């Protein structure tokens, strides 16, 4: 692609998508929406984090038990 073609494409692009105004502002105060999002995270996060951890731990133990059956009594001892 020649430099002339490149400049022409750039010009077409700027015509199709004019630059955004210097200082655009949202039409509403977004802080309440951020707070709502944080609240929903505070409620949802502990549960989902522990569920994920529990499943990972259970899967790991199951894998150890299947791979090394001799370790089952040891695992039971520590439970």
């Amino acid at each position, binding site marked *: *692609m020649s430099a002339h073609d490149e400049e022409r494409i750039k010009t077409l692009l700027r*015509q199709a*998508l004019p630059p955004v105004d210097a200082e*655009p502002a949202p039409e509403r105060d977004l*802080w309440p929406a*951020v707070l709502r999002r944080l609240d929903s995270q505070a409620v949802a996060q502990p549960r989902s984090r522990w569920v994920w951890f529990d499943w990972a731990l259970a899967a790991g133990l199951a894998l150890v038990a299947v791979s090394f059956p001799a370790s089952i009594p040891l695992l039971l001892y520590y439970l």
Partner: protein
Amino acid sequence: MGSWPSGVLVHSADSLDKFRLGDVDAFEELFRLHQRVVYGWILRIVRNPTAAEDLTVETFWRIYKAHARFEAARGFEPWVRRIATRAALDWLRAQRPESELTEETMARQTTGLGADPGVTAEIRSKTERAFARLPPKLRVAAVLSVVEERPHKEVAEALGISVTAVKLRVFRALRLLRKDLERQGIKP
């Protein structure tokens, strides 16, 4: 073109320290200070005011979620810009290309706002459609570098890539755009 003008957005080191510890009041202070530039940055990428508002909320939610990982030495603004760019990129990836022609942009094309008389509304429309068909990561690099004329270094930091990679993405975007326009019978 004033997103994140250096030296204008001043926040105390104290508020950054408190934010890092998860203090919501400090977070609100940072939000009030940066929401406008975050919104403007995202709008420049997604070019849809409603989506930009939602993505601003999403960005600040991600920022708060990652508060413990914030490193003051690397600066708040570049970190925020990177998170905002990633959120906008995720949104672009989730969109169907043709759906990005909004009523607002169509209206702008027909009224010819800022238009070159030598470039018809049809060519502008075809260019915009061709641009919407580009891969999102090329679109972000091209729109920020070519349309918004942001420095390559700033775009590179926002995308988490090198300046060379930004230039390469812009070049690839322009080349693909030219091919698409040629297929539509427009010889640039």
